[in-house]
């Protein structure tokens, strides 16, 4: 399992893993699409959808979190860039930073959640709270999944499993991680700024 798989010739020329990852991400688009569509239609159409005051939402902290996540995204892509140039150290360093930033995101979130509860915004308080905690919670689960995937890649990277020509799994982990980032980029304005 630790040896990189040899990539068989495929009809499309795209490795199975990569195509599979994109197909999976397409289904994730539909999943989040279903949630976000529900949010949008209820937000505009519901007769009872109170929006908390901006001060209660903690925009500065959420902005910081956005920065954390896009920075982690760039370090992830730099990790892939490093191994494609046969730079093992660069791969390990950038992956480690990515994982660290992922934990950082979760830490800020776990500070934010009790803060919101304290202000009376809970999952059952009203529709805003319900959607906020459901969607950010689901995104948080995806972050945890992404961190786990990245740690698996990091362990293998330290063992030296990836080479310039065999770094597909780094790319797959990257695709997933960027997607998590991408979802946050949409969630951030619709929950905090609008």
């Amino acid at each position, binding site marked *: 399992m630790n040896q990189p798989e040899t990539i068989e010739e495929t009809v499309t020329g795209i490795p199975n893993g990569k195509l599979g990852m994109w197909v999976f991400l397409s289904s994730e688009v539909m999943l989040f699409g279903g949630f976000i569509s529900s949010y949008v239609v209820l937000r505009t*159409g519901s007769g009872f959808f109170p929006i908390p005051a901006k001060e209660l939402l903690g925009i500065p902290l959420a902005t910081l979190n956005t920065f954390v996540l896009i920075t982690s995204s760039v370090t992830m892509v730099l990790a892939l860039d490093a191994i494609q140039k046969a730079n093992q150290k660069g791969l390990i360093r950038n992956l480690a930073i990515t994982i660290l930033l992922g934990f950082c995101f979760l830490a800020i979130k776990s500070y934010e959640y009790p803060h919101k509860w304290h202000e009376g915004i809970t999952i059952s308080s009203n529709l805003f709270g319900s959607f906020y905690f459901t969607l950010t919670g689901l995104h948080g689960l995806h972050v945890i999944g992404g961190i786990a995937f990245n740690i698996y890649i990091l362990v293998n990277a330290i063992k030296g499993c990836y080479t310039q020509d065999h770094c597909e799994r780094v790319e797959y982990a990257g695709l997933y991680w960027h997607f998590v980032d991408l979802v946050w*980029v949409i969630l951030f304005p619709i929950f905090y700024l609008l």
Partner: protein
Amino acid sequence: MKKTYLTVFGTLAVLTLLTVGVSYLHLNRAGAITVALLVAGIKVSLIAAFFMHLKFEKKVIHGIFYTALFFVLILLFLIFPDIGLSQ
């Protein structure tokens, strides 16, 4: 490539600051939504195109991914008139 990634990163950072800044201007509802969604759209496209290398991928991947986006839009735009406009 490294330079491209850092440029994209810089753009993302500026756009984030921009959208947060605009939100404090108290634009009218339509204006605020337009700006926020436009900025989010640009950011999403940048991440997908460069970080996920979608720009350089083959047509099969484009086909599947864009089909998903298309169906999400179908879902949103066909439910919206029914529930979103009920008030």
